[in-house]
């Protein structure tokens, strides 16, 4: 992707121009071809629909930056949701939610320790976690749980002015998370680890601890996504969240992250989320038949990354890397 380095007050502001253009183009096309697109209802829907993928994508990004991957996020969403919904009967709602998020943090930490301390392949560790955590969600409750307390729905339905609260939460995660990655030593270390872990180790930085941190952040985001989703849908289901990881990873990669680590940005991942949500929304607004939706969705994603790619200076070498 073309990156224009613009210097503002001595700081590097990297504007991913082509990508921003692309998203703008998508929005313009949407606005001009579908009457419904620019309605308040639809825009509010868009804002709500990006929350889950957005939260998961940010957590995923942090893990991907280290050169890892977290396949377990969908299961963590289910677990955190069902546990929270279950606890609402006995605990105050905020506390129940805290437990849900905490479970996500705990799962993330376990993933991180297995990857960092025991040097196991992230793909297999988190695939195993995907299976186990999903199982645990069912062990907790085989049947969906609908908390009767209407207060439980507040989080998912509250609006702050024209913007849904949950969207603000997601934006805050991207904002704070982006600053974490760009401007704090641990954030920079996580990126550097993905670039060259040995270099970071030789610089006297505890690589393992940072890897654990990355997975923990991903778990935290997934836990948060779980309670938000439950509150939004109004009912927790142990089977929710299957294949959520794929969209989250796709968002990161569409946004320019490299699965071998070291490259990627919060801004980019957010753009990737926008692209995915816009594609879904558009296909629905056009009333494309569902199977054709799938066909088109894949083709559009390819087109999007092709457009990004042609904007990038051609390298002489071929990598063929994930």
């Amino acid at each position, binding site marked *: 992707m073309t990156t224009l380095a613009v210097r503002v007050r001595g700081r590097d502001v990297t504007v991913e121009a082509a990508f921003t253009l692309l998203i703008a183009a998508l929005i313009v096309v949407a606005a001009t071809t579908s009457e*419904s697109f620019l*309605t308040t*209802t*639809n825009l509010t*829907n868009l804002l*709500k*629909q990006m929350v*889950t993928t957005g939260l998961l994508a940010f957590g995923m990004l942090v893990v991907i930056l280290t050169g890892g991957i977290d396949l377990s996020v969908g299961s963590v969403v289910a677990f955190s949701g069902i546990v929270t919904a279950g606890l609402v009967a006995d605990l105050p709602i905020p506390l129940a939610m805290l437990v849900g998020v905490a479970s996500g943090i705990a799962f993330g930490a376990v993933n991180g320790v297995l990857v960092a301390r025991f040097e196991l392949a992230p793909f297999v560790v988190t695939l195993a976690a995907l299976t186990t955590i999903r199982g645990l969600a*069912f062990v907790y*409750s*085989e*049947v*969906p749980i*609908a908390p009767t307390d209407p207060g439980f*729905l507040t989080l*998912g*339905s509250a609006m702050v002015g024209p913007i849904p609260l949950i969207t603000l939460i997601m934006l805050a995660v991207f904002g704070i998370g982006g600053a974490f990655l760009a401007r704090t030593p641990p954030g920079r270390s996580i990126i550097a680890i993905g670039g060259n872990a040995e270099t970071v180790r030789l610089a006297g930085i505890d690589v393992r601890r940072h890897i654990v941190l990355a997975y923990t952040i991903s778990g935290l985001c997934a836990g948060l996504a779980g309670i938000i*989703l439950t509150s*939004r*849908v*109004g*009912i927790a*289901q*142990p*089977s*929710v*969240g*299957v*294949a959520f990881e794929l969209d989250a990873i796709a968002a990161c990669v569409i946004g320019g992250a490299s699965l071998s680590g070291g490259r990627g940005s919060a801004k980019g991942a957010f753009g990737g989320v926008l692209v995915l949500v816009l594609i*879904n*929304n558009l296909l*629905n*607004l056009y*009333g494309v*038949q*569902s*199977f054709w*939706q799938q066909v088109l969705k894949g083709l559009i994603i390819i087109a999007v990354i092709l457009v990004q790619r042609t904007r990038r200076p051609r390298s002489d070498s071929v990598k063929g890397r994930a």
Partner: protein
Amino acid sequence: SEEKAGKKDSYTIGVANFLLSGPYFSGMDAAIAAQAKTKGNVKIVSTDAGGDAAKLAANVEDLLSKNVDAIIISGGPLESAPAALNAIKAAKKPVVLVDRKFATGEYTSWIGPDNEAIGKQDGEFLAAKVKGKVAIIKGGPADNSIGLARTNGLKSVLSTKSDITLVEAPDFGNWGSDGGLTVMEGLLAKHPDLVAVFCENDAMCLGAQRAIASAGKTNQIVLAGVDGQAEALKAILDGTNYVVTGLNSPNVIGKLALDRTVDVLGGAKVEKDTVVPSPQITKDNASQYL
């Protein structure tokens, strides 16, 4: 103007499918669309949530953005979908549920089968026909209440029979023929002495039938399914060991659902819950459903 809610000359109806990628559900979607065609003034917009409850909510929101006149939710994910129903209610649109009834929440009308009754029906048929070990193949996952209702129906009959023991496959068949096949293979390895198998849908039973045939136990084990999938009807008609199924026709339900929705839009007073009967299909009557 004179055009009051529900008094338009043409309608757009949104169909929110929970999961289209099963013959039953795609059949439902197609039946609704086909019936809409016959009306001439009804346009259908259909969405697929791919089995994801949150996506269903999002799709419902998208449909409301398109300002559809009513929404049909097919194969709802859960006992309830409060957020989706609330959104529809806030938009003051009618919502008709097909297949799965919600235990809670407000909806305009529901049309679907009585899954427990179908299970019972299969159970009674098997009780009359076999003695010994009967296996159950479930679709999963564990929170799927449709499958649960069918299995519970079956169990309510068979568990009272002293000459029948029930064994439940430990893993799920995922509602597909390939899953049915694999689960059956596992069952046969552990329980070579089975006399019958009940599957929560026909697709799994068709796979299970293959596994039984491969094991050379076609003469020993009979199969009972649910749905009335074409291949199952043919197997029953051909006099194979596939002996019974219960009709759960997406065509019938889909047609009724569209009619019901149009009626609601026309301002008619309608029945809230409609159970579509699920006749038992055996060799004797299979030809009339094919």
